[in-house]
């Protein structure tokens, strides 16, 4: 079936004209029509422009143009601004917002020749770990529709897992690519902070947000990351470091690779989860890697640190949604204050409000030092821990999540329990490091993720390690029942 082919295989068939991009696009649009509504994975489907873009790609292919993603369909997380297309960020606040420009990520992927099929559901303003905070309702996990797909990029992960597109984009502020990738049995990569431009990506927490990609393998993710990455003069925090050839790096042998086992990740880890990670470590050893235990003593403080820093930034970032220039505006405001209060009160959901209030509190006079400043100090200690670890090892390995996907509704009323889902992923965001999640087995029939983390700008190393692992295992080829 077309939807089980790799990006490389699809590109080959497209370039040899065995299939056209229009055929491929129709195939995926049909799958979206068949499965999309039940999974609630998409907020918008852009069938008409997709077919037009596919036809344009076919013309370029017919003229002999060859690019790895030319004519390949893709779904963008609805956090990326797309010119002329609704960009809701999963919020009532932006339900009526048609973006007037393309995010840099969108522009670059367009230039690479991808065909956008639609926009993926997500937690409201990327705040959530279960995709239950979306104004458009929860996304369902294709492995078990009673379960959450994880979040905040839950729609993107579910769509990739259900084979609604070969590639989907996501963003990761505290684990929002890696955690849903793990819970849906998909490969997800969050690059180094600054590797991919944040321009046009609606901000949640600016110092942590980073765009990335979901695919069914590291080999498929490589050309997508290649297209997205690189310095952007419109994002001052993007870094001007050359982008290596990620696809070429995939086949690098793992002989001599020093893999660090994070002691803190195994403390209190559920036995079946730990066993999966140890199985994965065995695979790496068989591939020639060496393993050694390392410790990041400050890592356990990462969740509380994150839940000070991220809300602080979000409380300020979301101030622009005031009902004045775009987005939701309340009916018949009495005066300016009423306009602000009701537009924001009615436009934002509960989790967003909770974080705005938390963030406002930690930045307030009298609390700033005790919370925000202290969190920044701890953040530095965590970053230093990682630096020390990477002086000893090339990569760190651990679980992506503490548990497999949980029931929809099980944690939504208990924010602290919900926040603990990100216990293993937040560290990489605080330190700005690249991280990946790869399918590594199942617990109770639900997929689990193996997490890889590397030093800044080590995406090549992560991808080659992941590709090595996926060449030796087949977890990443498993599809949820009914979506094969």
């Amino acid at each position: 079936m077309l939807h089980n082919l790799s990006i490389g295989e699809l590109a080959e068939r497209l370039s040899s004209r065995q299939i056209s991009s229009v055929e491929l696009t129709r195939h995926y649009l049909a799958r979206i029509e068949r499965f999309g509504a039940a999974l609630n994975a998409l907020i918008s489907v852009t069938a008409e422009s997709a077919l037009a873009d596919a036809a344009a790609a076919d013309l370029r292919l017919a003229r002999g143009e060859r690019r790895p993603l030319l004519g390949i369909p893709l779904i963008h997380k609805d956090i990326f601004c797309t010119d002329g297309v609704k960009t809701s960020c999963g919020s009532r606040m932006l339900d009526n917002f048609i973006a007037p420009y393309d995010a840099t990520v969108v522009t670059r992927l367009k230039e690479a020749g991808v065909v956008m099929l639609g926009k993926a559901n997500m937690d409201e303003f990327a705040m959530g770990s279960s995709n239950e905070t979306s104004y458009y309702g929860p996304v369902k996990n294709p492995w078990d529709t009673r379960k959450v797909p994880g979040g905040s990029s839950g729609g993107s992960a579910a769509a990739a897992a259900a084979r609604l597109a070969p590639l989907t984009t996501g963003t990761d502020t505290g684990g929002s690519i890696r955690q849903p990738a793990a819970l849906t049995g998909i490969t997800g990569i969050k690059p180094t902070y600054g590797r991919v431009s944040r321009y046009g990506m609606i901000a949640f927490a600016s110092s942590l947000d980073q765009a990335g990609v979901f695919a069914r393998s590291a080999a498929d993710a490589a050309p997508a990351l290649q297209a997205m990455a690189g310095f952007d003069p419109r994002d001052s925090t993007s870094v001007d470091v050359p982008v290596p050839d990620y696809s070429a790096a995939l086949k690098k042998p793992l002989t001599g690779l020093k893999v660090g086992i994070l002691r803190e990740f195994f403390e209190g880890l559920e036995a079946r989860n730990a066993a999966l990670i140890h199985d994965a470590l065995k695979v790496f050893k068989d591939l020639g890697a060496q393993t050694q235990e390392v410790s990041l003593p400050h890592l356990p403080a990462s969740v509380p640190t994150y839940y000070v820093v991220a809300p602080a930034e979000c409380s300020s970032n979301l101030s622009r949604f005031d009902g004045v220039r775009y987005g939701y505006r309340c009916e018949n405001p009495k005066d300016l204050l009423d306009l602000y209060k009701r537009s924001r009160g009615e436009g934002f959901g509960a989790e967003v409000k909770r974080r705005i209030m938390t963030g406002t509190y930690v930045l307030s006079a009298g609390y700033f030092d005790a919370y925000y400043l202290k969190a920044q100090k701890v953040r530095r200690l965590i970053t230093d821990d990682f630096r020390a670890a990477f002086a000893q090892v090339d990569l760190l390995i651990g679980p992506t999540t503490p548990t497999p996907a949980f029931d929809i509704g099980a944690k939504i009323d208990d924010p602290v329990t919900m926040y603990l889902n990100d216990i293993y992923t937040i560290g990489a965001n605080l330190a700005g490091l690249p991280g990946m999640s790869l399918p590594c087995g199942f617990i109770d029939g639900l997929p689990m993720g193996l997490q890889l983390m590397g030093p800044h700008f080590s995406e090549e190393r992560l991808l080659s390690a992941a590709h090595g692992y996926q060449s030796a295992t087949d977890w990443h080829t498993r599809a949820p029942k009914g979506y094969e």
Partner: protein
Amino acid sequence: MADWEVVIGLEIHAQLATKSKIFSGSATAYGAPPNSQASLVDLAYPGVLPVLNAEAVRMAVKFGLAVGAKVAQRSVFARKNYFYPDLPKGYQISQYELPIVAHGTLQVMLDDGAVKTVGITRAHLEEDAGKSLHEGLANASGIDLNRAGTPLLEIVSEPDMRSAKEAVAYMKKIHTLVRYLEICDGNMQEGSFRCDANVSVRPKGREKFGTRAEIKNLNSFRFVEKAIQYEVARQIELIESGGSVVQETRLYDSDKHETRSMRSKEEANDYRYFPDPDLLPVEIDTQFIESVRGSLPELPDQKAARFAKDFGLSAYDAGVLSASRELGAYFEATVASLGASHAKLAANWVMGEVSSALNRDNLDIGASRVSPQELSALLLRIVDATISGKIAKEVFEKMWSEQQSADAIIEASGLKQITDSGAIEGVIDAVIAANPRQLADYRSGKDKLFGFFVGQVMKATGGKANPAQLNELLKAKLGG
């Protein structure tokens, strides 16, 4: 009043003369139709990001070096959070804990000629807000975001000023300086240069400052003076009648010449400052600082010192003539064609006739209707005794209104001075003959009548007799 000391500090907002905004590529030109210079970044659309304008940084560094301040090699932009419709992001990007410029000083000449050193606490970069429009809209307010994101340099002084006049002198000096540096056009009507004044009073001799009030948004030197004078009187009266000053923000009403309360300290916003995560710290190396230092023009104090030394001008005259780069250039161009030995004459004319004609016609020195070369051609006729200073003033008026050269006017109007002794003697003789009574009185000791005879001769010659010659000849003739 004698028992009170006034303490004033100013926060001056100078709009930097960059072509584009501080964090977006939009133009900064004044007076464009509403929102025609507001990009997606200025409108704070979802997903957009600020990118710092390097020219604004260069200008701030220029200022820092000109006031002998420390230019920070690392400064940080912070967000000042508050809701207002003219603030699209819900926060203003400013510098808070780590400003780009700190610890400068400025020498300010006061009216009595004394020089006072005023401390400059800091100067930091920030973006301006937009403005709300209320006219012509029923039940609604309009928002014009053309000004949103315009770069400002906020220059904060130490509380070093002791009177409204000192505050104005300081503000004028900053105004001179930013225009010298070409970092601000100084246009106060358009709001390019404005200030907030922090005012308090304390009993003379006491060290502890009194409670201050901040008067917002003063956009003329006159308003600064009036507002401070009013505020000082208000505070003294309040304290003397048993009340106490509360810390608050006040607005100046320029129609009523009074200040009134805007908001108290309790009502003040908690701005929740924190470093802006969208912008990296501004890192400046010494090489950059030195390259900016190398590009600094001659500064007002340096120019004044040079004028005093090279041209023998008084400190006051040198100060006036160096108050703007353009005025200094006009003066120097005049001296260049006239000769340095006549610099004092040129200075008097530039500060006198030229300045009053400019004021009368509301023109800048750059738009003077008499050029430095034309002026020096006129002054040359005084130097070579072709005309008297008095006649020269008439000629100047004609040059100004008719746009002709001094020589052409002198020639056409027959204004050339009479320097022929015989001719002058002839007139004197006639005058003496016509006034025998006055002659007798003069000779019997009424010396004051000398002036009468001068006047009569001048009248008879149409003012053209050479005054020195006339004096000499008349004295001899009257003496008999």
